[in-house]
């Protein structure tokens, strides 16, 4: 069983709270561009809808498949992908394999949502209820 965060694009208001709190929690720095969850929109559209990049378990664990050194592994217990920094060679194959994988080059970390050990901060911080934990696949 895999768990993931479900994103409701109709409810998102672009407050960036999710990526702010995620990056701070994971990296000790507010750094939305390197968060496990990022919300973007196309500025060429007039107030267009968001797209959210967060692991939603829809890419057949392509990140794990692509990793040549087992730095990514599926945690059956928690139902999430784990990153093992000691094994990573920063080859960035996983970034090519899945659009929902993020990276923090400063700390050399691959950023994939791990649901904050069962209590996802982004869900708690979303003021509009656009993020819901409970999706399973």
């Amino acid at each position, binding site marked *: 069983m895999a768990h993931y965060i479900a994103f409701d694009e109709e409810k998102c*208001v*672009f*407050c*960036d*709270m999710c990526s*702010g*709190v995620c*990056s*701070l*929690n994971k*990296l*000790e*720095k*507010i*750094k*939305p*561009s*390197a968060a496990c969850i990022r919300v*973007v*929109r*196309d*500025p*060429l559209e*007039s*107030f267009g809808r968001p797209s959210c990049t967060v692991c939603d378990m829809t890419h057949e664990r392509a990140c794990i498949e692509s990793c040549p050194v087992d730095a990514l592994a599926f945690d059956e217990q928690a139902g999430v992908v784990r990153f093992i920094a000691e094994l990573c060679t920063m080859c960035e194959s996983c970034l090519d394999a899945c659009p929902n994988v993020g990276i923090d080059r*400063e700390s050399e970390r691959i950023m994939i949502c791990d649901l904050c050990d069962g209590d996802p*901060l982004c869900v*708690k*911080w979303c*003021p*509009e209820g656009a993020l819901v934990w409970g999706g399973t696949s």
Partner: protein
Amino acid sequence: MKYAGYAGKFLTVDLSSGKIAELPMSDDLAEAYLGGRGFIAKLLYDRLPRGIDPLGPQNEIIFATGPATGTMIPTASRIAVGVKSPLTGTISASYMGGHFGPELKYAGWDGIIISGVSPQPVVLVIDDDKVELRDAAALWGRDTQEAQRLMSRELGPEFRTGAIGPGGETLMPFANFLHVQHAAGRGGPGAVFGAKKLKGVAVRGTGGVRVAPRAAEYIAGCKELHDIIMENPVRPAFRWAGTTGMLPVVNEAVGLPWRNHQDDQVPDVSSIHNEEIAKYVRQYEACSGCNVICGSVVEFERNGKEYRTERIEHESVWALGPDCGIVDLTAIFEANVECDLAGIDTMTAGSTIAWAMEMTERGLLSKADADGLDFTWGNADVLVPAIKKMVSRQGIGELLSLGSRGAARALGRGEEYAMQVKGLDMAAYAPRGFTGMGLSYATTGRGADHNKAFTVAAEFLGVLGDYDRYSLEGKPELVKRMQDSTAIIDSLIMCMFTVDLGITVELYARCANLPTGMSITADDVYTIGERINTVERLFNIEEGFTRADDTLPRRMQKEAAPSDPRGHTCPVDDVMDEYYEQRQWDARGVPTEALRERLGV
């Protein structure tokens, strides 16, 4: 720097030579002036020679964030844009929300100091520490939204953009700078951009910002602040109506000016009621790090044309509507869009049209003077043509492009009908109905700004005490105190709405301390705010402003609003001595030596 929360340096860009460099921030500057408006006050006061032409090469544009910007402190999305104002000749800082400020911080910059004049149109592109000036010939002449789309197309979706429109290019003294549709709105910064041939600024920041405590502690502290706002009973009204919710309430209380402040109540506000505006809302929008969520997108149709745009704000509805005797909602929406595309201040635009309408009513502005435009009260069809003429600066447009006071002076008559202070037109809160607002308009550094001491909170909303709306008793102390605390909100930089949403002065201190590791007290908040107001005052005094400039139009002081059965006026001149005493300024309005010594300025 020993403090977290800051990036630790300013970017300096000299457009004349193309030289790009950095200026380290100091702990002393942070402690004394905090950020945002404080930095702008100190930097412009120290750097600009006296008496310069605001549109000349010696003026500077200063973008400044504050220590809370981009740190998840609620509403701390804002960035200040400071210049010597081409409209007022005073020091001036304007603010815009959205996502631009945090992005600049994440790129590693607390702010940008822009000097000189570029030989040809350019855009400033900041990609973390890679900074360049790019040719903007293809952007020149484009409206604010088209220019930003072109920047996004060239740079990609990750860059946050901002641009001036034709108003800035034609050096209109109340032109502004827009990030998406968030405007650094008043005081004319856009004209300074235009004079410098700087069409826009784009920024991408991937570096982020550090805060003082460990993440878990910071997240818990920040969540407390967010919850205070989230649980405030007023928050749903902001979430639903934005600023427009105030309109019917203020009108009911005889506090919403009508027809260039001839009266303080709109006869029938039903067509521009926030419930009418809400019918056009299609989606909600927040600024970065904000859980108030006052923004929204509307769709409407006017004269067969379809629009999709940001919902209008309270001040813009009023200035382009009731102030001109207009209550045709989609006409007001359309005029608002026209101002945003041109990159000009909606409030000054509306107030200047209102002045032209009163001049017409009094027979002081003929149809020939007005190039055939019909400035009859309530003529909604004149709004867009008048705005277009202002921006092109042709015919009557040249006159109106100067703002109401500038127009009156150029015409040689009608200055008594220019509803302004120091050249900045008044806002949607009637001084005769809220005397604290009158005193605030009269004494605020850049003129009749409603956001430098929003005393309506204390006089009407019951947030900061219980003052008699009509009496000036106690108002010098209230205005002074609120001007000082507001300077901190403008320096952190947080949103003014937080005053109404449970954020007290003690909590503003906490909002400064939490990300930075400083230990500011509530008393310090007032002292830093007093220092900022004092430096701004010194700037203006040295530019030649005197006590005579700290006043309100005669109408406010001598004539009552017909709709007010008790016939109140707002004689601010009567309490100016008391206000100066509160401020420790001498009888001429000059900060005393004792004050300067106490504040270290």
